[in-house]
């Protein structure tokens, strides 16, 4: 029974990180109908930036702020420079561009920071809370992770539902040409969508880095889990991304706890296949499925 509680708590915390990555993917999917396979590499770069700033200034907060700002900038730059030219091309073009960017960023990180993974500080203690005489697998840092992801999700919900900027972003995503005819600067909305996505990814990066370490390929599994979570929730739906992230986090935590952590990547792919077979549009999507 304590095992079950531990696995559940642990699942919620890792699920929160998956949810953040899934949110990043959903933001880009909604804005430009592209699955950003470079998301993991982009958040790897911002986490390296955080790591470098933290080790040179000694301040966790400064490092995270710089990383988040870098996320916004990288997201906007990638959209303007690399994605804009292929936005009206067949979807495969953008996928290839994203894969190329992934390869480039991984190589770049190796050249700048080396291939050996380095550790990353956590914001709070990672010693589990003690309840009675037993220590549970949930620490103050896990609380921090969950609260941050909840805050990001709520912030995005408010942005999209309650502000005119969010309304313009939704209009640009759903009907770019109509939005243009209403005077909305659609290109700017796309850039903003990518910037916000990379920002959200950067948050996920610094949250997960204490447990994955920072290395050129250390965030690849997170991208896969985030992608599965996004598909599970429905690529179109931010609430779906959050629910999908938590559900996947729980499922993988049980698999890891009861069957061994080696099976986790396999389990993630099994979930992906099951979702695509049973409900390809995801749990929360309002649109019909696409055949690609």
């Amino acid at each position, binding site marked *: 029974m304590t095992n079950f509680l531990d696995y559940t708590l642990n699942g919620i915390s890792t699920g929160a990180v998956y949810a953040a990555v899934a949110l990043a993917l959903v933001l880009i999917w909604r804005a430009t109908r592209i699955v950003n396979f470079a998301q993991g590499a982009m958040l790897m770069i911002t986490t390296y930036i955080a790591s470098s700033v933290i080790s040179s200034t000694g301040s966790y907060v400064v490092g995270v702020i710089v990383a988040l700002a870098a996320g916004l900038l990288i997201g906007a730059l990638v959209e303007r420079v690399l994605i804009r030219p292929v936005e009206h091309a067949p979807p495969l073009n953008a996928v290839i561009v994203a894969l190329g960017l992934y390869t480039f960023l991984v190589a770049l990180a190796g050249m700048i920071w080396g291939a050996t993974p380095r550790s990353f500080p956590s914001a709070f203690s990672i010693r589990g809370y003690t309840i009675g005489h037993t220590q549970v697998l949930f620490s103050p840092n896990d609380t921090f992770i969950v609260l941050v992801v909840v805050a990001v999700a709520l912030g995005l919900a408010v942005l999209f539902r309650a502000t*005119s900027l969010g*309304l*313009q972003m*939704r*209009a640009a995503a*759903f*009907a770019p*040409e*109509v*939005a*243009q*005819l*209403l*005077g*909305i*600067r*659609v290109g700017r909305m796309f850039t903003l969508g990518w910037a916000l996505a990379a920002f959200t990814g950067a948050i996920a990066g610094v949250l997960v880095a204490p447990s994955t370490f920072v290395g050129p390929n250390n965030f690849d599994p997170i991208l896969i889990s985030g992608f599965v979570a996004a598909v599970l929730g429905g690529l179109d739906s931010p609430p779906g991304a959050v629910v999908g992230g938590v559900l996947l986090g729980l499922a993988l935590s049980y698999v890891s706890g009861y069957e061994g952590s080696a099976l986790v990547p396999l389990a993630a792919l099994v979930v992906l296949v099951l979702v695509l077979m049973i409900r390809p549009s995801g749990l929360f999507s*309002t649109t019909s499925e696409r055949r690609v």
Partner: protein
Amino acid sequence: MLEVQGVTTVYGAVRALDGVSLTVEPGSVTAVLGANGAGKTTLLRTISGLVRPSSGRIVFDGTDITNASVEDIVRRGVSHVPEGRGVIGELTVEENLRLGGLYKRGEAMAPKEVYEMFPRLLEHRGSLTSKLSGGERQMLSIGRALVGRPRVLLLDEPSLGLAPRLVAQIMGMVRRLADSLGLAVLLVEQNARSALSVANRGVVLNLGTVVADQPPGELAADERLRHAYLGF
């Protein structure tokens, strides 16, 4: 107010518009008629900047807007209501209306004024527009264009798929908009008879060229034109 001067628009090897010229004046309705493929929709898309002409000029209020961006053309006051499904189905009626006026900031028309013009929309203000009937969608897309207080309204087939009674209602409204708000309306229609009933002038397009540009009475009286291009 809006002048189209010798505009040619090419899609690949097809000359969709071939040296088209016309003018639209404030307070008047200009009907653009012609068969499918005559270039009517291309004319509107060229004016609003969605496609670029290969030659010719489009002048609004003395300013050349031929190469202005779509967003800037709308912001100057030329509003294009696209054919059929111009409303955004994933948004509510009220959200669609708000979108129409965001670029005007404080000067936009309040959704309330649109609801006064189209009481049917008020009943559905909170519902997704995918739930609306064809007539309601048409009213919404015209209403949404008005929110930004445009000076030129480009209407693409507002009668498409509507029952005759609704068509008459929409046409009557187009007339009133021109009269009461002083709008310059460019009305693209297949339904020549109803369009001419409210127009000050009728322009007939055929294969991308203007074959007639006359007051509606003269057009309707010209049996050859009527049979060849207008289908009544």
